[in-house]
């Protein structure tokens, strides 16, 4: 169903969702990211892999951090990058998403990095771009955020050797989280022993178990003996939709505190996709504590995005060579 992300010879063409991708490919992304992460330590942080390529960051929804790391990643690969924040400006003029896309494509773009508030928007765009254009999903609605999931996997791999031995708990608003959906798929594909989701029923998707996870509503039970804890950001608008009574009560039940952290394995790592609401989903002492790898995640984001971008555009040039 998701094979359209790959070229005929199995190379990455678009990166829209983790679903349907094989373990080898996820491993290849991480291996490449490992190579690129050494570049960041150098004096000259650039490689000429994507020289002459044009990448457009198409953000229909605000995000400073994700956009910045995509921009840095593209620049370190020597591509030309354009950032476009299309909040409502184009649509308010009555221009449809497709019109916007076709106009930008006419500027000889090689890759769109897309963030959109609607689930499925990246898939939709990928279906309608010209054959030579790649699409990277930088987050679509509540559906997927595959580069975030891969940088999380990369971070886990740096700390924990063998995925099948791991027990991973994802805590919080799974229902609205594209990050959680992509993480669950990546963890499953990499063969993680046990994936748990922890949250109140209002923030868990219907039939959660069909996603391949164990469901917990009690934090103490859910954190027992886990190797990795991923806390999710709680959006404040959740209080408006009668999903939660208050941030305070949420913190009492599901906020990650030092006491709760003790229930996990002693060497458990704590992750968060950011930006953090301190005192809502995580206590400052934990976020800044010795088990936290939250800032590492941000750093790894650049290398992982370099890996994905170079693989997606690399597969094209190979294609063109073979067809020439």
């Amino acid at each position, binding site marked *: 169903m998701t094979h359209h992300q790959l070229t005929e010879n199995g190379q990455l063409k678009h990166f829209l969702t983790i679903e349907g991708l094989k373990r080898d490919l996820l491993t290849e992304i991480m291996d490449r990211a490992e190579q690129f992460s050494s570049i960041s330590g150098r004096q000259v942080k650039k490689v000429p892999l994507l020289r002459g390529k044009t990448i457009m960051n198409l953000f229909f929804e605000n995000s400073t951090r994700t956009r910045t790391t995509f921009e840095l990643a593209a620049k370190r690969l020597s591509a030309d990058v354009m950032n476009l924040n299309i909040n409502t400006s184009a649509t308010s003029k009555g221009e449809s998403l497709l019109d916007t896309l076709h106009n930008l494509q006419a500027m000889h773009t090689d890759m769109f990095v897309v963030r959109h508030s*609607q689930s499925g928007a990246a898939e*939709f765009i990928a279906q309608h771009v010209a054959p030579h254009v790649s699409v990277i999903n930088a987050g679509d609605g509540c559906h997927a955020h595959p580069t975030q999931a891969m940088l999380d996997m990369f971070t886990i791999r740096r700390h924990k050797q063998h995925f099948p031995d791991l027990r991973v708990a994802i805590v919080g608003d799974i229902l609205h989280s594209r990050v959680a959906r992509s993480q669950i798929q990546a963890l499953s594909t990499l063969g993680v022993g046990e994936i748990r989701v922890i949250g109140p029923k209002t923030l868990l998707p219907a039939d959660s178990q*069909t996603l391949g996870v164990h469901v917990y509503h009690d934090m103490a039970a859910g954190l027992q003996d886990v190797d990795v804890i991923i806390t999710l950001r709680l959006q404040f608008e959740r209080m408006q939709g009668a999903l939660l009574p208050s941030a305070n009560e949420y913190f009492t039940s599901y906020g990650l505190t030092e006491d709760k952290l003790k229930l996990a394995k002693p060497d458990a790592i704590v992750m968060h996709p950011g930006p953090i609401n301190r005192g809502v989903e995580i206590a400052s002492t934990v976020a800044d504590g010795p088990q936290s790898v939250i800032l590492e995640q941000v750093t790894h984001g650049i290398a992982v995005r370099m890996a994905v971008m170079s693989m997606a555009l690399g597969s094209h040039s190979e294609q063109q060579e073979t067809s020439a």
Partner: protein
Amino acid sequence: MKLSIINGHLIDPANQVDAKQNLYLDNGRIMAIGQQPEGFIADQTIDASNLIVCPGLIELSAHLSESGQHHTASIASETKAAIKGGITSLCIPPDHDPIIDTPATVDLIEDQAAKAGHAHVYTIGALTQGLQGELLSEMLALKQAGCLGVSNGLNPIQNTLVLRRAMEYAATLDLTLFINAADPWLQSQGCIHEGMVSSRLGLGGIPEATETIAIARDISLIEQTGVSAHFHSISSGKTIGMIKDAQDRGLPITADVSPHHLHLSEHDIGNYDSLSHVMPPLRSTRDREQLQQAVRDGVITAISSHHRPLDNDAKLGPFAETKPGISGLESLLSLTLKLVEDEELSLQQAIANLTQHPAQILGIDAGHLSIGAQADICLINPHSESECQPEHFISTGKNSPFNGWHFNHDVAYTILNGNISYQKG
């Protein structure tokens, strides 16, 4: 015009006919069945040796032009599409553009339909003014203008007091109430069935309780007010038991289902296929099986396309931003008879659900082939081996998820008022 249809396999569930019979039509009516009347000289004869001959189909709810849309669809184009689909009578729900809440609108539609002359067009009047759910419409005037019933269309009434009074008033006038059952609050956040697919795709879910709550409420009020009611487009297996229970208690309740709910499920949405975006949503495979069973058991007695022609732009976009609906007139017959091929339904039952039963639900004298009846007839080729090609639909709406489906049953001829109004090329 004298027309004879000979050697056909006549299926007329209303008269319990299922045999090889000849039909003789004169002056828009059925003149004789079986023996050719003395002195009858046909102007034209159709040899129906390899065809099924049945009453023209009756569509319970076809949106022909929707309020607020740039409507490319018109009564002329859509009734022509109906005829191609073997449908000789169709009923327009009140959420039309303009809303059917005054006799003038009914007259306008009847006028446009008469000018087009492709199919018999009936209307359902608005239950409340402007479908706002607040003030009663002038139901007597609508009835006198020709409306066959009343409905609030796809705008569920939130205020139960208003609903109760509207039902009482409709019952006073002996008008059937047509209901699209949905709890507006539970429906508001979603665009597909709440279940494993909504969880996987990260799309807002519409829980099963959206339908069960509305139907439970409505059945209680139907029982109290004594109104006759028909539920449109049942989607959830759970509601079937509720409807059956109410029917067993003698309440005047009927229900229909769409061919897409009988053939598809949430899984057909695949990777955000907006052509499978419908309201009510496609539900689980279990629901689909239960709906098929309910048709076999006679709890649901009609199959209706719930036609909603949309232009291409309405289906182009991220899933939740696309408009729900399927252009269904031209695939209603083939999809229903596909259930016969799959041995889910008997041929007689399938045809009754498309002809006799919807006529009874609407209270119109149609859907049977009695002597003296209006000669609205559908001739079906049961060995057509055709392919569903929405781009070739006559309807302006090409929005169908059945593109490429293979059909064995297809319309060969449609006879309207004793005249051949469609013949498969």
